[in-house]
């Protein structure tokens, strides 16, 4: 297929996922803060901006909920906002209309039109939960429609690849928001969890509530309950969201799904992208979660995100970049 269109599909997948995950993260932050002391509020929003790598873009604006929400949800100048992500997802989908099913195009376009016709500013004040739910549900509809109407051709695979790579990064960020908060509360000297934890496993009651929110925002709460049955424990939650091979939003799940798509797309050739992805998957797969805490979870999550970004870069080099004319005979006959 055309390299440009493959790239557009890859990014359409990424942008829809980014919109959905941003909605999830904003939702969890907003709602846990409703039950937090006022003194924590600014810091928590700042953490969210950090985790999303948007602190610089946010600048010196006050860290009040209304401001941050508007920035993360509505701001067209913020390329990471939900609105921007949806506009770009739609633009990418529009430029590949002849490749995707018309049902898929319509569901992307519907979301765009729907958001355009609502008074988002008011909804963010009155009913942010409803709004986030609408966005998440619309994104799930888009995946569902794609999954049920698209043939499993290369175009589909590039879109799916973009989605799971984005999701892997975003799940790391989701964990990181909560974890950083936990660390802040405890202070730097105290080791909270891990192989050599000083304190007994199990978080205190407030924190309990926050980890539930994290699980819920990854649609993983019920699954977690069935899997662990025990009380809420940060280490278990992190293990579940990072390493659980059967959970659709876990990082390991996303990476192995990416590996599957990439191997088909590479037609079995050992490529740089496959190798990069193999490395990051291996760094997770055989890890014990306690070890990760000992290493420093925040740094580890950062490393995983950076490696996933390397994979995306390798995919772009291999499939999307325009090859110079000089090298093209080799490519054409390869």
């Amino acid at each position, binding site marked *: *297929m*055309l*390299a*440009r*269109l*493959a790239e557009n599909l890859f990014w359409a997948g990424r942008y829809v996922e980014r919109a959905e995950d941003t909605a999830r993260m904003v939702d969890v932050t907003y709602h846990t803060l409703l039950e937090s002391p006022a003194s924590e509020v600014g810091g928590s929003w700042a953490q969210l901006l950090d985790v999303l790598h948007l602190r610089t873009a946010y600048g010196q604006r006050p860290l009040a909920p209304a401001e941050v929400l508007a920035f993360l949800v509505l701001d067209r100048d913020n390329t990471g906002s939900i609105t921007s992500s949806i506009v770009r997802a739609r*633009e990418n989908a*529009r*430029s590949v*209309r*002849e490749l995707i099913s*018309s049902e898929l*195009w*319509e569901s992307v*376009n*519907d979301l765009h*039109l729907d958001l355009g016709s609502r008074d988002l500013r008011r909804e963010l004040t009155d009913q942010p939960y409803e709004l986030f739910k609408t966005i998440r549900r619309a994104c799930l509809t888009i995946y569902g429609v794609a999954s049920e109407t698209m043939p499993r051709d*290369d175009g589909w695979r*590039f879109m799916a690849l973009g989605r799971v790579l984005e999701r892997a990064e975003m799940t790391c960020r989701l964990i990181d928001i909560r974890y950083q908060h936990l660390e802040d509360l405890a202070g730097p000297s105290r080791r909270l969890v891990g192989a050599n934890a000083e304190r007994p496993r199990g978080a205190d009651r407030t924190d309990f509530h926050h980890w539930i929110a994290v699980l819920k925002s990854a649609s993983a709460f019920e699954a977690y309950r069935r899997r662990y049955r025990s009380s809420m424990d940060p280490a278990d939650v992190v293990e579940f969201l990072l390493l659980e091979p059967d959970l659709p939003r876990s990082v390991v799940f996303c990476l192995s799904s990416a590996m599957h798509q990439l191997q088909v*797309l590479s037609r079995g050739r050992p490529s740089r992208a496959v190798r990069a992805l193999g490395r990051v998957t291996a760094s997770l797969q055989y890890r014990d979660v306690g070890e990760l805490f000992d290493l420093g979870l925040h740094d580890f999550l950062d490393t995983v995100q950076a490696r996933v970004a390397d994979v995306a870069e390798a995919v772009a080099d291999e*499939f*999307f970049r*325009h*090859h110079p*004319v000089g090298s*093209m005979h080799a*490519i*054409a006959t*390869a």
Partner: protein
Amino acid sequence: MTQSRSHASPHLSQQPRPMGLFADYDVGGDRFFDEVFGTDGSTREHYRVLVDRLRSLTPQDLDRRQAIRDRIFRTQGITFTVYDGGERDEGIERTFPMDLLPRIIPADEWTHIEAGVAQRVTALNRFLEDLYMGEQAAVNDRVVPRWLVHTADGFRREAFGIPVPHAARCLVSGVDLVRDVDGVYRVLEDNLRNPSGISYVLENRAAMTRVLPLVFSRQRVRPVDHYGPMLLRALREVAPPAAGEHPTAVVLTPGIYNSAYFEHAFLARQMGIELVEGRDLVVDEHVVYMRTTRGLERVDVIYRRIDDDFLDPVVFRPDSALGVPGLLSAARAGNVTIANALGNGVADDKAVYAFVPDLIRYYLGEDPVLPNVDTYLLWEADQRAAVLDRLDELVVKPVAASGGYGMLIGPHADDEELARFRTRIEADPRAYIAQEVVSLSRHPTLVDHSFEGRHVDLRPFAISGESVEVIPGGLTRVALRRGSLVVNSSQGGGSKDTWVLDGHATGDG
């Protein structure tokens, strides 16, 4: 039924005009030809089934159906883009308004139109081939003045020697027809470069079958959805002989901000071929390739929707990023076919238009089936003088423009505008033509809960491959403003689904 009487025959029945929705409808008397009603108010026979059906509907029913149609078009993003030079310069996407009441053409009338369009396109293909690949016989024999050809905006010396198999230089053409006060179909202009609108023909039909299914089930309307396969077949027929049995064809678009982007994507989808932009293509050793995820793939035929001047920055505008460097060299080497062919604009120049009936006689030895609108050539001193004398009664058009821009409609113009055009004509008589005003036929159109007469034209589409074929129907454009004669979509026009009835069916069979 013979062809000669068919196109002007009113097809009147004895049915009284229905009340209700049409109660206040003005049929226009003898000022206009009304497509649905005779001057006495009786319904033309081929509209009876439809009008009977509408009689049972209330204005609310119509509104509801119109709303369904609007939603279909909006959610599917069936839009064109209008630029108003706003801040973001992304243009505004508008849906193309489609009126609920279709235009209906009876079988015998269609036979006449089809023959006329095919004849015209055949002659125009011959003319272009003669001009760019042949001996320029028509020019040498003075059927068309040589200077006129060489001064046409669309004439391209760069097109000399670029072959097109079967001389199908106008792979897709749109011939704009209007109906005069006697109901006679006349050719208003030819569109031989990148005529657009076929996607609306197909989408209008798809929407109408959902909005008014009952009317469809009661009469036989000829289908239009074979357009995609037909176009693809023609594209493959014009592939260079060396391309082999499975030539690769692509649609070349300027990109998503082009006003007709929807159509480009639509056509690529209908044909199941790649929609490429200039940056997706590369030329090496006079061969065109597209950049794919698995390397470069050879391209044999390009259905381009980019104007001549932007196709190849090596030959034309060096600042254009839309085209492909080296594309013309590949075409000249016979390694790729560009459709529509380069330089077609010379034949849809509005001054050359005046000579098309002569070209038909010259190349085909036949009389034109469809007459032109009476046209005056302004470089001829006597014609110019006569035109300037009665400028306020005529239409003046720039020869190279399209989209209805830069026209003078004499009867609607004020003194200042008339004076401006007088000066322009005297300064550059080659740049304009003058035509008698045609009182375009009118068709009932839904305006604020009731039907009013609005002027319409008809753009049938012809496809040239090994032979010339015409899609039954075409795009009926509607001037939505009361009294306006300008139907172009860029000027706020709308459209109607256009039905050609199957000759073998009767009214309510």
